[in-house]
């Protein structure tokens, strides 16, 4: 053969290893940032930095509690919650083939808010039927509300076959449940403050139990999602093409929506409604590494975890010892990032 060696020597497996080495670098960067943020989270709090550093090296009983029972589980829990949201966002963007999809597309946010409202109302009233709702607590109520909203959406769109129907049904359900929530809130405006805290997100009370729960759910969601990643790749070529390659579209969508629901409902139950992490994390991964879905489903959770950790840190530090809601911080950062994207797009055009 008289062909130049570079042309024929370009073997297909070799190409893969170059992009995967870039991915490895990105993973390393993410993990380093996570470690740094965890360290910073241990130091930042209501005490000054010097005091906290002193605590790290010679902790007394109370500071040991603050470090290991409050700050560390809070940052670990925030990382897992962010990872869940990042994973859910990547899955949503893959299933709906839309870069603007976020985990709350199917009405999960409104469902969770309604669940919390009912639970708070039931705690006050003496209506016998609702007493159990009051005992559930905010976490379980939010989780159940989110799942119920998704079930309602799937029922409304008559199955998972049509993506457009799912999206439309999700919007309808979100509006409907929001309206019901508002009506219920009117009957008892005193719970509005608690609702507001939930709606803006809060990482304040993440304990080791919460962190472990979030971690376990993350593993349960991550493994199937990573296995199904190739199906998302095929889906991105078109539904007909994916079907012709041997994919069962309903099964794939059902499995992915299951992962999406579980991840979002758990995250929302623990930290409230935190926006933009699910939207921005996959975007950031695509911008820097530009990958296939397997790499996206690995990179997006790592990015999301670091994002929420950073937001938690900022919310604790800016007006210490008072605290900003973590959802407000992510909204500011996420909003700024989207504005930047728009500006760059218009500049390119």
């Amino acid at each position, binding site marked *: *053969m*008289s*062909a130049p060696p570079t*042309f024929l020597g*370009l*073997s*297909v*497996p070799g*190409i*893969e290893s*170059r*992009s995967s080495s870039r991915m490895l670098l990105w993973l390393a960067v993410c993990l380093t940032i996570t470690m740094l943020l965890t360290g910073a989270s241990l130091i930042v709090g209501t005490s000054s930095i010097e005091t906290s550093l002193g605590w790290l090296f010679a902790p007394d009983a109370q500071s040991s509690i603050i470090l290991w029972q409050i700050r560390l589980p809070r940052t670990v829990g925030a990382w897992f919650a962010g990872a869940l949201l990042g994973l859910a966002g990547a899955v949503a963007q893959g299933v709906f*083939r839309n870069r603007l999809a976020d985990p709350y597309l199917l009405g999960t946010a409104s469902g969770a808010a309604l669940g919390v409202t009912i639970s708070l109302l039931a705690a006050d009233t003496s209506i016998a039927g609702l007493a159990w709702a009051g005992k559930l607590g905010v976490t379980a109520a939010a989780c159940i509300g989110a799942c119920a909203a998704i079930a309602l959406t799937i029922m409304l769109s008559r199955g998972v076959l049509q993506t457009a129907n799912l999206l439309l049904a999700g919007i309808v359900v979100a509006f409907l449940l929001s309206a019901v929530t508002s009506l219920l809130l009117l009957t008892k405006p005193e719970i509005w403050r608690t609702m507001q805290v939930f709606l803006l997100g809060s990482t304040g009370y993440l304990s080791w139990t919460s962190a472990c729960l979030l971690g376990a759910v993350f593993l349960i969601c991550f493994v199937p999602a990573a*296995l*199904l990643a*190739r*199906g998302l*790749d*095929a889906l*991105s*070529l*078109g539904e*007909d*093409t994916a*079907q*012709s*390659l*041997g*994919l*069962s579209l309903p099964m794939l969508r059902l499995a992915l929506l299951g992962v999406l629901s579980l991840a979002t409902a758990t995250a929302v139950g623990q930290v409230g409604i935190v926006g933009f992490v699910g939207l921005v994390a996959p975007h950031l991964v*695509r911008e820097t590494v*530009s990958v*296939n879905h*397997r790499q996206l489903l690995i990179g997006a959770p790592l990015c999301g975890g670091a994002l929420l950790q950073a937001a938690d840190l900022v919310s604790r530090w800016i007006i210490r010892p008072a605290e900003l809601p973590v959802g407000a911080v992510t909204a500011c950062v996420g909003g700024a990032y989207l504005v930047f994207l728009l500006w760059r797009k218009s500049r390119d055009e």
Partner: protein
Amino acid sequence: MSEPGPSIAVRLPHQPQLQLQLPAAPPSPIPALACRALAVGYGARTVLDNVTLQLAAGSWTAIVGPNGSGKSTLLRALAGLLPLHAGSVTLQGRDLAAWSRRERARRLAWLAQSSGATNLTASEVVGLGRFAHSGWLAHRKSEDDAAMRRAMLATGSLSWAARRLTTLSGGERQRVYLARVLAVEAPVLLLDEPTTHLDPPHQEDIARLLRSQARHGGVCVLSAIHDLSLALTADRLIVLGSNGLIGHGTIREALDGDWLSLAFRTRVNIVEHAGVYLWRPALETPSR
């Protein structure tokens, strides 16, 4: 499954001569793809009714017809992507629904008219063609790599294997999609407008490729092609009109029966030149 068939030399412009291994022709008289009394449509509307066809292995059939006559619909129905209103489709003798999803995907490869926007690299897209073989975990064996390589060489897309699809031009992208279809190495190929976006030299290459796949590889190729002259380089024609199937047979039969004029409801002039059939646009006289 079958021993390697004859190897042929394919000359592609700007590329040296390469040896290709193509799968051998299955030696059975059962039609590779057939349908009986097929009725298919969208929702309540029926686009095609009572269509019976048999497509043998080792032949290239082109579907021609005016817009809206159901070319894509027929292809999708034969690929099993549309639910049928009536009738049945058989693949290699068995009903389409009787094959398992994976087996069917290994035997029938489909190229859509337009693919979704994707940010994958060319090699990843071609790798998806091996999905039915390598499965979810994408654990690629050497035969998968070899099939991908062959497919990319055949379409001349190997040089941009590492590039993202969004950075390629329309024609380059189309060749990557074709490579994906070829990588499946299925005995039946269904292609919806495979020559879109391609400039004439590459259209030639694709036509040559399809012909060699059919004649030497024993693949049953069915394609919907807009360009009449290119469609007439196939072995057989399926002509669809606004009222349904007009005819199915060799090029000679189609010309003798003047099916094309019936389908397009206007005089379609086909001339023969040096063994090739060409469409001659009639610009001179307005009368019919």
